[in-house]
């Protein structure tokens, strides 16, 4: 019962935030909408006992990433109005329609298909098996996934170095 209430509230918040991201004219409002979606998704993580992932979501996404986004929006300036007229009217419409049909079909399979394509999902949910505490996440992270973990360390170093190189990029002439 508690999960149902939390799911409805968080789902409404996530959808409202997502719609705000797409429809807001000012990028600042888009960023705030995305922040609401990120928090709502974090609530859904907690509801599903993914505690550590929810905490990381709030700290890394809602904290660091959104700060970076707002910083760049302020840097670039938000005063310019986005042009709304269509350059490729038919192409955009067709691509959007096809993508929408595919995604709605997938959602229909997920909701009405009763997960017949996932045999193990028919069993009862074991709350203990997926209780995402720090200890529970750390064990597979540092045993089965240790290679991927080290690769992400390398990736973060490369990303930081790449950002610095891009920031130091100067126009050659004048």
């Amino acid at each position: 019962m508690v999960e149902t209430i939390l799911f409805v509230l968080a789902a409404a918040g996530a959808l409202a935030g997502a719609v705000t991201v797409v429809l807001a004219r000012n990028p600042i409002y888009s960023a705030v909408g995305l922040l609401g979606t990120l928090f709502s998704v974090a609530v859904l993580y907690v509801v599903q006992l993914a505690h550590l992932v929810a905490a990381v979501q709030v700290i890394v996404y809602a904290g660091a990433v959104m700060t970076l986004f707002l910083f760049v929006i302020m840097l670039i300036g938000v005063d310019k109005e986005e042009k709304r007229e269509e350059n490729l009217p038919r192409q955009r419409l067709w691509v959007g329609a096809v993508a929408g049909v595919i995604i709605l079909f997938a959602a229909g399979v997920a909701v009405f298909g009763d997960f017949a394509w996932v045999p193990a999902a028919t069993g009862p949910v074991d709350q203990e098996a997926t209780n995402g505490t720090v200890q529970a996440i750390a064990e597979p992270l540092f045993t089965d996934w240790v290679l991927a973990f080290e690769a992400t360390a390398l990736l973060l170093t490369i990303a930081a170095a790449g950002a610095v190189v891009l920031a130091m990029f100067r126009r050659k002439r004048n």
Partner: protein
Amino acid sequence: MVDVGWYMALAAALFLIGALGMLLRRNALVMFMCIELMLNAVNLTLISAGRALNDLDGQVAVFFILVVAAAEVVVGLAIIVAIFRRRATASVDELSELRG
């Protein structure tokens, strides 16, 4: 307990909104936010499916996606700022040629 299908439906809706924003908006920053929206939708499916399958690996996978997304945002925003310094615009329509 909420059926896992509802989580999947919510994630599909979030992904759809993100994809539509990607197609409809011209501002590179807003398009970037729509990518984050789609990444979050996929993360939600991984966590929900992980719980339905009694498998913790879904949450570990989300962990890695968060790291990759953070790295992607750092480089992407640096590129947007670099482009803005050259062309003084964040609209992708005005950046249709790859010349500097």
